[in-house]
């Protein structure tokens, strides 16, 4: 009896103690941990896709709904559109943008800052881990190109929105390591952007097969680099880069009508205008776009517009934009409508945006991709750069290619100043609702003149938004380095 008992006690102790450290070493079995990540080609493919996915972060273009910070900051601040919902506590942050009365805690700003830096963090990790990975050089080049292209895109948005920003090129293992990092000079940020895009334009493929639709090509890198140079007023470099895109012969503004460019039925291969776009997919797979359903008039039933739910009045065109379209401009009806017919047959005079129209799908679940870089943008930027170089007549054909598709007569014989205004006007209507107008006005230093003439309380300091309170709260160095005017 006694022996049996001792055996029992001994066994119970041993049972617990067996493999002490093994017993205490429990690793997740139903979730992926990062411990063994960044090793195989598959890992990097997944990591790069995870970085593209940042396009759908609410701080950028979101899932195509009114939460898209980049649309509010890049265009909501302009004279192109306002918002169909009334001002209330929930919509106040949006009105703060529309009314140039932005508070430091405005979530549109903080999600933009955060979203872009999460993307930068993902790109940094890829760039950091690639050299040691045992994968083919061809794949390495491509992944490096994509990661750097995306990082440059994120920084370009940040520097245009906030001016000086923290320049981060490494990943972090210490959660406190970033608590005192100051903002870098704008020129340093641009140095990194240009260097990244230069790598990208060399590394990225010239052609993207249909199966890879949505990934960046070298033309996307060149187009973006052209935009960066233009923003830096380096017009010769800008025109060179943009000319390379034009000379590729892969893109045109003739194959597709304006409406077809934004049509869900125009395939990637057939769409000659879009260089890079945010990819959306319907089918309730959490990848759909809500741009169509949120753009219909606020409170209007979705059923009137071939969708479900009710409208949010996002990107409600201003009367000023409506009148900016010249008579006969084919783009107008493809971009916006002045009214709709209610269920009871009454016509309601509420303007709304129709650029991303796709009757049929459920609210928030349409396919229409959102263009980030378009050939028409490249043509107009090239026209602008060439004009700035003093070659106004050489610039005219590029402007007129865009006008031709719109069914408008060519512009000829303008002086340099008038041509500037013509490009500004053309960009406004060609690229409306694509998130460019405010950035364009700031880039050309026209924001005060244009906006205040229309009664907006814009001052020069509005060209930059304030560093979000979330970041200044966490980093005392930033708190003492707020943008002027805030």
């Amino acid at each position: 009896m006694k022996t049996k008992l001792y055996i029992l006690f001994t066994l119970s102790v041993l049972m617990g103690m067996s493999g002490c450290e093994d017993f205490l070493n429990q690793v997740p079995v139903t979730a992926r941990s990062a411990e063994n990540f960044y090793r195989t080609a598959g890992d990097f493919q997944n990591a790069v896709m995870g970085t593209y996915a940042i396009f759908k972060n609410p701080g950028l273009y979101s899932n195509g709904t009114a939460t898209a910070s980049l649309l509010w900051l890049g265009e909501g601040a302009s004279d192109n559109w306002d918002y169909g919902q009334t001002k209330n506590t929930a919509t106040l942050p949006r009105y703060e943008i529309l009314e140039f009365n932005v508070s430091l805690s405005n979530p549109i700003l903080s999600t933009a800052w955060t979203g872009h830096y999460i993307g930068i963090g993902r790109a940094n990790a890829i760039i950091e881990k690639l050299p040691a990975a045992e994968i083919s050089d061809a794949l390495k080049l491509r992944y490096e190109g994509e990661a750097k292209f995306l990082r440059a895109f994120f920084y370009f948005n940040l520097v245009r929105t906030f001016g000086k920003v923290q320049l981060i090129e490494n990943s972090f293992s210490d959660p406190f390591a970033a608590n005192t990092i100051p903002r870098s000079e704008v020129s340093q940020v641009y140095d990194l952007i240009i260097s990244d895009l230069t790598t990208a334009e060399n590394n990225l493929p010239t052609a993207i097969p249909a199966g890879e639709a949505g990934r960046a090509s070298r033309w996307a890198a060149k187009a973006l680099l052209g935009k960066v140079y233009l923003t830096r007023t380096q017009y010769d470099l800008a025109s060179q880069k943009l000319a390379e895109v034009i000379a590729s012969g892969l893109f045109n503004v003739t194959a597709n009508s304006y409406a077809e460019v934004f049509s869900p039925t125009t395939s990637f291969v057939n769409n000659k205008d879009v260089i890079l776009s945010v990819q959306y997919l319907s089918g309730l797979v959490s990848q759909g776009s809500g741009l169509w359903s949120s753009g219909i008039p606020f409170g209007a039933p979705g059923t009137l517009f071939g969708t479900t739910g009710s409208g949010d009045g996002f990107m409600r065109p201003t009367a000023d934009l409506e009148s900016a379209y010249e008579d006969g401009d084919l783009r107008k009806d493809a971009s916006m409508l002045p009214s709709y017919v209610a269920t009871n047959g009454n016509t309601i005079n509420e303007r709304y945006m129709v650029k991303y129209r796709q009757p049929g799908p459920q609210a928030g679940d349409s396919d229409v991709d959102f263009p980030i870089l378009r050939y028409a943008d490249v043509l107009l930027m090239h026209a602008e750069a060439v004009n700035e170089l003093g070659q106004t007549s050489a610039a005219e054909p590029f402007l007129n290619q865009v006008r031709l598709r719109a069914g408008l007569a060519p512009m000829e014989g303008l002086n340099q100043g008038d041509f500037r205004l013509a490009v500004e006007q053309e960009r406004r209507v060609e690229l409306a609702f694509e998130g460019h107008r405010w950035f364009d006005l700031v880039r050309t230093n026209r924001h005060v003149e244009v906006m205040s003439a229309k009664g907006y309380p814009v001052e020069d300091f509005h060209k930059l938004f304030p560093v979000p309170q979330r970041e200044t709260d966490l980093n005392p160095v930033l708190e003492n380095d707020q943008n002027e005017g805030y």
Partner: protein
Amino acid sequence: MTENLLRAQSKGLLMVMLSLILGFAQAQTQVLTGKILDESGTGLPGVNILVKGSSLGTTTDANGTFNLEVGPSDNILVVSFIGYRTSEVVIGNQTSITVSLAPDAQQLSEVVVVGYGELEKKDLTGSVSSVSAKDLTKVQVSSVDQALQGQIAGVQINTTSGAPGGNVNVLIRGVSSISGGVQPLFVVDGFPISNVGIGNPLNTLNPNDIESVDVLKDASATAIYGSRGSNGVIIITTKRGKSGAPKIELNSYVGFQEVSKKIDLMNAQEYAQFVIDGRNAGYLDNFPAGNINDNNATRPGVNYDVSDKYRNAASLTTTDWQDAIFRRAAISNHQLSITGGTDAVRYAISGGYFNQDGIIINSGLERYNFSANVDAKVSNKVTVGFSLLPSYTSQQDVPTSGHTGELGMINSALSMDPSIPVYNEDGSYGNSIPPTDGNVAIQNPVKIANELKINASQFRMLANAYVDYAILPELKLRTTFGTDLNYFKDSRWNPSTLASSAVVGPATASANTWENVNWLSETTLSYKKQLGADHRIDFVGGFTAQKETSQRINVSANNFADDLIENINGGIVNAGYQNTDINTLMSVLGRVNYAFKDRYLVTATVRSDGSSRFGKNNRWGTFPSASIGWRVSQEGFMSDVAVVQDVKIRASYGTTGNNAIGNYRSVSFLGSNNYVIGNAVTPGLAPVTFANDNLTWEFQSQLNVGLDFSVANGRVNFTGDIYDKRNKDMLFNVQTPSATGFTNALVNLGEVQNKGLELAVGTRNFVGKFQWSTNVNVTFNKNEVLAMSSDAERIFAATGGRGNTNITQVGDPIGVFFGRRAVGVFQSDAEAIEYGAQPLARAGDIKWADTDNNGIINDNDREVIGSPHPDFYFGFNNTFSYKGFTLDIVTNGMVGMDVYSAVFAINNSGVHNNAKFVDEARWRSPEQPGTNDVGGVFGRAIRGGRNANTTFSSAYIFDASYWRIRNVSLGYSFPSTMLSKFKIQQARLYIAVNNLYTFTKYFGYDPEVGNAGGNQQVLGVDWGTYPMNRTSTIGLNITL
């Protein structure tokens, strides 16, 4: 010598013969009558009389007398009564007997359950409070933690939801963690259980099965639980068999519940005027050129529309939506138990059924539970035993809290236009979908309750087996193996006919199953010995290993073809996941108690824990504690002080940890971040959490000094403790600068202090025929955050739809309210303009303090505007008894805490929230500034006002101090003379009312409710929680 022996033998023989003769003579049973007296010679009613070794027994009647039929072999009577020493009396041949009971000075020989053993109360040097079965079953509730409310100093219990089986927060000595768990460790029959399940995890235990609850509070007591001890430990001991003939007990009660309070709502006419004023004010505020007589066509947008319905409101009828969702609901509880045994084998078996309908339609809880345990002495040295506690619980739930857009029923009921009927004439549900008259869409709460199906159920079994081996009489080896098998599931069905803002919506369904398996292996060696006259030593040491595996499977479906199949099978499964979480804990522990001359006491404890939850570099931790006690009353100089029975001074210091941070938190996880490439969903991954190999437990050090005394023949008992508790290296989920690529990270930092004072006094004010005893306890706790990652760091938390509401920052308690300070209402436009800091404000708008004096009101003007923590809380309980009648009054309260009424904060738009006090308190003009008897600040009714009066501010913070009459019960114990005819030992009938009344200024349903469950960072937010009930029951306890 031989002579003596012979004499003794013959005496013994004589005795045997005598008893045989007597036995024959009394072959028939005979009636024994008797009287039990107290120390003053008065008859004591309700005293238990039991024939030793049998189930025969009775209780004394109102005069202290009893009659009992005794058999020939019945020799000894056991006479027991609470507060008196139990007495054993030889019956002999007496037919009438009188027994005087002596008061028990203080129940010093009372045994207290501490971790891995028991201690006599006099030897205790730590802070441990005990509650007996009697006090646990006074209040008719589903779980034992609710029953503890107000019973113990230092234990703060908040029932944050009145739903049957709803959430209960238990805090021992304050909130000691910011983001880790704050609930104490619950140990049931030695098994530290997993605190998971549907609703409150303790629902699975029947309070009637519980013998005692012991609460370990200071480090001396809790260090034996090491890395799980820092939030305190609640040890629950279930009833076990006692030797004797089978004892059958029936405990039953039935009753009904009603909502404990209704909120007065506006009638349709008042609401109409409220809407008109709100819309007009909003219109003029945004369009100063407008005129209140403008028609709707002129007004821009429906927000400012005033429909004819409201202009001609006289004929509208009023619906009180509260009446539509609240009901009188039944509650019942039945339990039958059999206990008994021989000296060698003891057993206890019980079965119970509990059924509580909710006071909100379509909600309720039902529980079946069993308990069985056996202890068997298989040899002189070996005892084995087991216990099984299986239970099945099912719950039907309704969504109460949250915004109307989340189908929150309470907000829907309080916000719906009162002129809308519950049912339209055609039988359909009345609601404001699609919105009419410029209102917002609000779903009918009755429809929500009827159509949304939320069901959950749980099967749980706690099982334990042990072997005890007495190597020597004083040296015992024990090994225990236990499991907590816990299976639960829930399902939710939302038909297409129910949506928050549309006539139809997509039907959705989801289902979850959990399997939580927790096992424990434990081997301890204990040694207990009196060495000579002066030394007593009690040692326990052991080794334990515990592993918890929890698995969850979640499935949800959409795209339902119709509403016929009310579960995921009717649609297309579109999402789901499986989670497996494992954590392991391995420990070595030891404790020694030493007493010198029964006067000087020392206890030392240590536990070493290794846990899988922590980073590779910090897996093991050691937690020591030490304490001393001095029983002053045992000193010679005290022997003359007759009034004092016992005085003990205690002091302890020690460390414990908190490992309640979830599993795998030191690991960097990859999150799925899919994208679309080539028109197909393409997998994407990204690290979504920081890795931290140094992550470890929160570390607590606690100092405790206590005093116990018992005076006046044990009629006054006092226990007082002061403590200072510091938690360091807290598991903080800190916000990180976005530049890191992450928004937050889990780190160990910071320090929180809880210091406080606990006082508990028990007095027996009257003894004798009329008895009155009182128990009072009061606890003052001060919580303060001493350090965080930086002094400037602030952790915000948001709930209730108004952005950040609570803040945790250095120098303040955890989770205090933080917002603008409302200082009043502008009485005129001129006053607002003169103030200047609120350029958009007009007469009737809320004025906020410009705390930084920069002429602008913005987020920088926010400050601490209230605290959800009480300054002190107390219990005040009285028991009166007279002639078999017993009246218990249990009350408790909290003082000095605030509530943020999010329910009220969504009003003032002219479309939301119809509380009558809003209408009475709202500003109309300088002449009619409103009458406010509830606190807060009320501005004008305005929809879409430019001043944004609904911005979170102290306008919505209310004093929530309360004193609650938690239970009043009146019981009657039938006299034994009457019961003995029916072979019944004891019978007690009682009526009881829970939540009879609550004294409070707070206007909401209940000051205790909170929206965020156990989340300590957003305490005290009333966002439409399930209200409390008032329960009236009638019950019967019978012992056969």
